[in-house]
């Protein structure tokens, strides 16, 4: 499948500002910041969670633990797809029982990844609360799922693809809109 670049949606500065705002919102909305655990969904939810953790430490002096969550084994399409997703190790360094979690991902689209992530988190323990933070909300939800913290909401069509890049995973940073070729 060919992907055609359409336009840049966010540059590095815009990403920083959006994540900064989300960090402040997280600080504002949590009753007990020390109890919050940031959980990034593989692959690009992880640099986002790490970014948020760094900013929160900078502003509040509190270091929030960052967990890595792989949702592959919880996908609802495993028997329907023709390629085999690579399973990565889930590493959540603290017991999430009774903790407040912020689940982080780069893009919120159909909501199926978030659904899988919720199931995965439930198997790890019983958190007191889970909130969802995404850098980009592009709409087209197929499940009743909403983000609590959104970097930017963007109108897209289904033929379009949002590509998020982070320094740690891609060597560069930015959000681009691409179009699927025929």
């Amino acid at each position, binding site marked *: 499948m060919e992907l055609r670049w359409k336009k840049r949606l966010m540059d590095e500065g815009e990403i920083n500002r959006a994540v900064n705002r989300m960090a402040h919102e997280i600080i504002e909305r949590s009753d007990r910041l020390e109890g919050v655990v940031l959980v990034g969904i593989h692959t690009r939810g992880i640099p986002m969670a790490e970014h948020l953790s760094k900013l929160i430490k900078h502003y509040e002096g509190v270091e929030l633990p960052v967990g890595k969550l792989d949702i*592959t*084994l*919880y996908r609802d399409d*495993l028997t329907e797809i*023709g390629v*085999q997703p690579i*399973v990565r*190790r889930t590493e959540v360094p603290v017991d999430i029982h009774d903790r407040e979690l912020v689940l982080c991902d780069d893009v919120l689209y159909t909501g199926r990844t978030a659904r899988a992530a919720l199931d995965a988190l439930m*198997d790890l323990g019983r958190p007191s609360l889970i909130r969802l933070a995404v850098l980009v909300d592009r709409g087209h939800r197929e499940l009743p799922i909403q983000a609590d913290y959104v970097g930017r909401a963007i109108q897209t069509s289904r033929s379009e693809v949002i590509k998020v890049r982070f320094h740690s995973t891609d060597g560069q940073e930015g959000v681009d809109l691409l179009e699927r070729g025929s």
Partner: protein
Amino acid sequence: MMEAVQIRHRHLLDLEDWSASEIESLWRTTDAMVEVMQRKVKKVPALQGLTIVTLFFENSTRTRLSFERAAKAQSAEVLNFAAGGSSLSKGESLKDTLKAIDAMQADLYVVRHGVAGTPHQLSRWTDAAIVNAGDGRRAHPTQALLDGYTFRQGFRGFDGFRGKRLVIVGDVMHSRVARSNIGLWTKLGAEVVLCGPRTLLPTELGHWPGVQRCFRLEEAVEGAHAVMALRMQRERMQSGLFPSLSEYQARYQLTAKVMEHAHPDALVMHPGPMNRDVEIEGVLADSPRSVIEQQVANGVPVRMAVLYSLLVGRAR
């Protein structure tokens, strides 16, 4: 670091046609499965709706249990079929037996059979995937995968298989575990030394690239990074393959003293079931060098990874 690759095999019959990078990818999936097995809820929905049938023509409760756990931990349905060789000799052909079970609509069969090649034969007669859980003397690929995984996980400062030396001691001739491990370790660049009485070390195996035979245990173990003792079966004495158990013990029992010749970090392995104080000294099996328990524990995540790799992403 090797890139993870897609595993494209329909079956796991043996490891002959699996590449080193496919094996490494499988072990990375195993890493993820190890984490799953450490959770409170040891169950993920990955194989929901799929049916796995264990087809054991030869009894092995442990292997079957390990596969069953691996399947159920991924929410697959598991049906067990235990067929004694005798029920088949009552006139039903192997193919007809399989066709009858095929009516259960299995997605994957886990097959154990006393004769080499039977899983290969079955794979010609069904659309389901087949995992070889041990066939005759030929192969026991999931055992070799878990042995290799245990070494990769447990050897201090592990930096790959290249230049490592595995010693397999005992009845190599009748051992599918030995054959599969020889194939796996040499594929990954390790050297394999086979040790035991000459009657149990087939000459031809010693001619495989990367494999040598050695009839003296101390010599064989010299500088080894892993030493695996094989189960010694008493029946072998009756078939004239060696004189007596006491002579075998005296010459080939793996002891702490023998292990002094090995690399200081060498691991002691045993595929089980173990005859304590026959092929392996009891205290050595319980010593810190021994990873025998880890081998058993790793059986489940390795088999989870195998089932995942064969069943996911198969839609046409």
